């Protein structure tokens, strides 16, 4: 059952499996385990990032394409929800219309960019997407009557997801059953479904072909796969999942602006997470996002302490300031590209369990393997 859910792509490492179970449980029970608004916000952000990063992994890890326009699709999803809910009022219909329009727009854009530039070399594609993303960000902040410009849009979500909505007046385990909780669990369910769907895609025959293209484009073409078609399909799928992640973000924040969903910083974050977590694993997105967002939200306090402790050495103190945490992350990123090209997940998977000492006869080994 579980094996089928995970598309036969099991974690293949005990530590990784434990980590994944811990993260899923923690996310499922956050409202009941950790009281407070901040924790819930962090958990919701983790959910959004898991979907966003996993969708980027489809492209980078499984197809070997570096695109810098990923936040563009993320932003389209967020703006789709924001604009629809602003214009049509807070209803589920508006939400559905917004998401549908956003998906359609992402589909068209991804198809256009893909057909236009995936024929050329990887480098060209990266550069073109970078230019596109910059242009789109400008567009979003220029069309102010439509997108709210630099200020963005603040809107109301459907009534069942508003904080004022009460599911029942009696708290469960000391937690109010309000609309925020519902919204959180909506995000949780959507994230789980989307991640499983992506696992399904990368373990399908289609996913195998994209990996073949990643490994050796020339050979894949020679076998008879039409590389451009597969690459474009991969780019479109990845864009659609990113759009849904954007919609999740907008539903949770009840606000969207150019800096929240379109900024280049988010693109860099996604790139860092996918590489540190592990390219081409999907699980890397889960582990990486959880680590990254929690670190971003809580580790900066540690940095602040370190910075204050070293205030006698202004240089060190400046380096350790919480505003500079990207510096350390960037270093980690570079090191991980060199030393763990497969990221945390790949590293965990490559650690073999120690052979039992002393070596038993061969028959027993086979038996113990069968027992596993």
């Amino acid at each position, binding site marked *: 059952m579980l094996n089928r859910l995970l598309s036969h792509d099991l974690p293949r490492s005990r530590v990784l499996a434990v980590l994944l179970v811990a993260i899923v449980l923690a996310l499922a029970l956050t409202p009941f385990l950790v009281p407070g608004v901040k924790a819930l916000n962090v958990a919701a952000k983790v959910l959004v990032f898991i979907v966003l990063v996993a969708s980027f992994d489809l492209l980078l890890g499984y197809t070997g394409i570096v695109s810098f326009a990923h936040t563009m699709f993320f932003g389209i999803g967020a703006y789709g929800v924001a604009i629809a809910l602003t214009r049509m009022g807070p209803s589920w219909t508006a939400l559905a219309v917004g998401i549908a329009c956003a998906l359609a727009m992402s589909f068209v854009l991804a198809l256009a960019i893909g057909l236009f530039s995936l024929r050329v070399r990887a*480098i060209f594609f990266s550069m073109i997407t970078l230019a596109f993303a910059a242009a789109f960000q400008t567009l979003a902040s220029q069309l102010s009557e439509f997108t709210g410009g630099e200020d963005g849009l603040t809107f109301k979500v459907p009534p069942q997801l508003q904080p004022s909505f009460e599911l029942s007046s009696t708290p469960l385990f000391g937690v109010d059953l309000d609309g925020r909780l519902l919204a959180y669990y909506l995000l949780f369910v959507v994230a789980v479904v989307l991640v499983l769907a992506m696992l399904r895609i990368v373990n399908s025959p289609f996913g195998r072909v994209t990996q073949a293209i990643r490994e050796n484009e020339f050979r894949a073409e020679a076998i008879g796969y039409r590389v451009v078609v597969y690459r474009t399909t991969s780019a479109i799928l990845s864009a659609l999942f990113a759009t849904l992640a954007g919609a999740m973000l907008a539903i949770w924040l009840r606000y969207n602006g150019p800096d929240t969903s379109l900024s280049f910083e988010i693109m860099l974050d996604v790139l860092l997470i996918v590489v540190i977590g592990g390219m081409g694993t999907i699980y890397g997105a889960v582990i990486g996002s959880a680590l990254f967002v929690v670190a971003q939200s809580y580790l900066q306090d540690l940095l602040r302490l370190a910075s204050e402790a070293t205030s006698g050495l202004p240089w060190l103190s400046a380096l350790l300031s919480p505003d500079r945490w*990207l510096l350390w*992350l960037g270093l980690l990123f570079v090191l991980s590209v060199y030393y763990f090209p497969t990221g945390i997940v790949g590293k965990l998977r490559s650690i073999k369990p120690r052979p039992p000492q002393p070596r038993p006869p061969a028959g027993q080994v086979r038996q113990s393997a069968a027992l596993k």
Partner: protein
Amino acid sequence: MNKLDFDWKPLVLVPLLALLVLPFIGSSSTWVTLTVAGLAMGMIIFIIASGLTLVFGLMDVLNFGHGVFIALGAFVATSVLGAMADYTASGSLWTNLLAILPAMVVAMLVAAAVGLAFERFIVRPVYGNHLKQILITMGGMIIGEELIKVIWGPLQIPLPLPEALRGSYYLGDAAVQKYRLLAVVVGLLVFAMLLWTLTRTKIGLLIRAGVQDREMVESLGYRISVLFVGVFVVGSALAGLGGVMWGLYQQNVIPQMGAQVNVLIFIVLIIGGLGSTTGALIGALLVGLMANYTGFLVPKAALFSNIVLMMAILLWRPQGVYALSR
């Protein structure tokens, strides 16, 4: 490249664009002002982009961290010009140039030194792997930007033009800013030096030969690896110089400027054809002109003008105007 088979078509693009826009602008003096401003801006963009196109054309390394060297050059210039405030405040042109010249030299030296380290620790392990190059140099860019924030602080720093370079000369009704003339001179110098070095000197010959067939040149007893490091360092130094020019042009610098300029440079390189010096010049001039014309005609569409331009060029020549035959 001999004179007979020289591809002249891209060269016509620049005057063609200028002439096409003329009827839309109406008054000829405005057109001259805009055109000169556009060409000068193009020259600055060329200086910024030249280092990247050099490194890519010769080493096949795409440095996404190129923007950091530009930002570095600009920040070094703020420090140097800040320290030479007496020179910049005086009204005489020569005294001002005496301040700008050291700023440029120091910026180039600092950028070159950082480029040396960057090549050694960031780029060297990933030669020949484009995917990793993109990731690694992007990481290098993040680190560089953060370090700039550590040294100079995260805020915007003003970089005012020296006294004598402010204001404009007037040709009839058309105004030409003095600083832009300087930019044109510096840009042409850089362009001439690059072309001359690559086509008329032994070093250039060796570099081009090394690109064609590295093993052969090495077997003749030349150290290609040293040459290539030199190319990367020169590319970084040019970025530092471009940073000074760009910073003075904007009159302020922010740590994020590297990432902002990156987009612009990439558009220029895509238009010009990756790795071609002449192509980069044409691309930069086109982008500069386009930015000024659209800024005057449809101010809101400034950034899109570049994208539209890029699309149009790519439809005509999918590899850029001067594609390298690789």
